[in-house]
């Protein structure tokens, strides 16, 4: 597992039914591209987060396939529809098999 991987998510705590809300996510990750070389000239192996998925109450909001061209500390911003109160689940998949997850609840009135 890559070191010090820590997700952050920004989701409003409340919304009205059917409203579109803005979501931001950021995760600390080196996103080693597989293109760089170390001091001895050896290629540093690729090690990235290759997929990011956001769901709300089990339904998909966005599903992103990530290539090494996404920057260190991957950032995503997008919008979600919230028909009722519930929970967002954010999942990041690492090349090394690690899965990082964060959740956020929203109260819909």
């Amino acid at each position, binding site marked *: 597992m890559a070191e010090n991987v820590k997700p952050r998510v920004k989701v409003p705590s409340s919304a009205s039914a059917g409203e579109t809300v803005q979501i931001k996510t950021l995760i600390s990750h080196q996103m080693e591209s597989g*293109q760089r070389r170390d001091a001895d000239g050896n290629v540093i192996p690729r090690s990235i987060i290759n997929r990011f998925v956001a769901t709300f109450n089990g339904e998909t909001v*966005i*599903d992103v396939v990530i*290539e090494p*061209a996404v*920057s260190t500390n991957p950032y995503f*911003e*997008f*919008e979600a529809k919230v028909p009722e109160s519930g929970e967002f689940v954010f999942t990041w998949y690492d090349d090394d098999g690690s899965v990082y997850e964060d959740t956020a609840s929203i109260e819909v009135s």
Partner: protein
Amino acid sequence: MERREVLMLGAGAVVALGLPLPAWSAADDAVMAYTGGSDVLEGGVTLDAPEIAENGNTVPIRVSAEGAEEIVVFAIGNPNPGVATFRFGPLAGSQEASTRIRLAETQDVVAIAKMSDGTFHRAVREVKVTIGGCGG
């Protein structure tokens, strides 16, 4: 300046002059592989990116295409042109997303939206990646 970039820029100028395009590059193969050779329409998708990126390691981009099932982003001048594929689910509030990407050099960034009716739409933005003044 890399040869590939020179070729691409040259191609841009040729298009501007209304001359026939030269042969496809490897990057175009990636686009072709994605669209399966279908016609790609201009417009219907928006790609926002800075005209000049202060550092190629972190270039903010935003893609948007109303009615898209997914939007794929290619960085035509990178060693591997693929950047990201955004698939929008039933609870997407819009077919829009922002992220930060790496660009190896000045180049065209391409967004291709696959619409729910099966058509493909394209937007292209040139991003100039700055050259620092210091160091060798």
